[in-house]
């Protein structure tokens, strides 16, 4: 837009691809616009469905530009700068949050099998102590060990899930 093309031209350029879901959204906007729907109406439809605040702000700026002819280039530059700062912060926070992940996974992955392995051989180790104290059934112990190991894997997956949920999307 800084080189002089209009908003519609810029939307068309982005709708050609390469910008992820924004490209597909803009493609739908242009298709519907060519069918006779208003550009503002279409951008509002996309804005309603958008989940990201930054994307909503971008669409709002575009709508305001069409309605009130505001200085869109300057506003978009400011928005871009702000989002860039946020992205840098997000990446740094992500790296920091994942710094203890190997140790956490190893701790859980190590403690649980050690305890469960000892538990599994307890009935054999204490076979002679059956007269003094009641010993658990070997099948029941086997079920506990298998269940415990399964639970450990699930726990590891849950801990590792934060690598996915907190991804900065870079």
């Amino acid at each position, binding site marked *: 837009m*800084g*080189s*002089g*093309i209009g908003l519609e*031209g810029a939307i068309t*350029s982005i709708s*050609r691809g*390469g*910008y992820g879901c924004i490209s597909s959204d803009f493609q739908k906007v242009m298709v519907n616009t060519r069918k006779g729907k208003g550009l503002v109406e279409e951008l509002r439809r996309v804005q309603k469905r958008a989940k990201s605040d930054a994307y909503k702000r971008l669409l709002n700026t575009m709508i305001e530009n069409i309605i009130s002819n505001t200085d869109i280039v300057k506003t978009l530059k400011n928005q871009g700068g702000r989002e*860039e700062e946020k*992205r*840098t912060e997000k*990446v740094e926070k*992500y*790296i920091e949050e*994942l*710094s203890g*992940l*190997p140790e956490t*996974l*190893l701790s859980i*992955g*190590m403690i649980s*099998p*050690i305890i469960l*392995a000892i538990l*599994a*051989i307890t009935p*054999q*180790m204490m076979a002679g102590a059956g007269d003094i104290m009641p010993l658990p059934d070997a099948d029941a112990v*086997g079920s506990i*060990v*298998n269940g415990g*190991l399964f639970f*450990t*894997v699930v726990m*590891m*997956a849950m801990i*590792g899930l934060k*690598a*996915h949920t907190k*991804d*900065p999307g*870079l």
Partner: protein
Amino acid sequence: MIFYFFEVLNDHPLMLLLLNVGLAGLGGALPPIIERTRRRGLENSLPEVLEGLSDSIGAGQGLQQAIMKVSESRSDLFGKLLRETLDVSAVTSFDAALADFAMKTRSKQIQRVINLLSTAEENDAPIQEILFRSSLEYEKLNDLVNKRENDLMGQAILIILFISVGLPALIAFIVGLFAPESSGYAVDEVNSAMVHFFGAASGVAVLVSGRMLGRAKDYLWLIPLWMFASMAVYKFGYIMII
């Protein structure tokens, strides 16, 4: 020793299956690694190329001349592709050659820049300023991508080695030392449960490591081989201890 290894494997069809699937999966795992290395090499060169183009255009040259100058000064893949672009532009239009260059790089980052350049050129926009601003922006972006890669790569490798190799070796040592079969312990069921546990834990570890680096899909190919490695370390570790 090798025959014994195969004999043990023969008794564990799951491990045998994972080994075969894992070895076949290497064929799928290597191309994305090679492709990524190539693409990141091009993307890391992009800010320098854009700055060079900006300087040349600032010195009064046209875009085509600027590309020629930059391509001559570079001996890397970027320079080679730019030289090919100039050759293509001799038999077709310059815009078509640029589009062909963007396609060949297979990088979204470069394709966006080329799209921007074509639009700017069509509209007689100040290309030098656009190129210079783009070079700064892409330098920042690449620094961030590289920072993520460098900082998390060590941790991703650590997770895989800890969970897939270190942990099974340690547990095999403990179980083998304190509950050897030679002392009358019936540990077949425990060992079977542990082997499956380490396989699953290794799969989770590889997937988490891949996700940390933003390459979960590429790492999927490596999961069977690491699962096998983890199971084998436990199984053979235990046999070696007893």
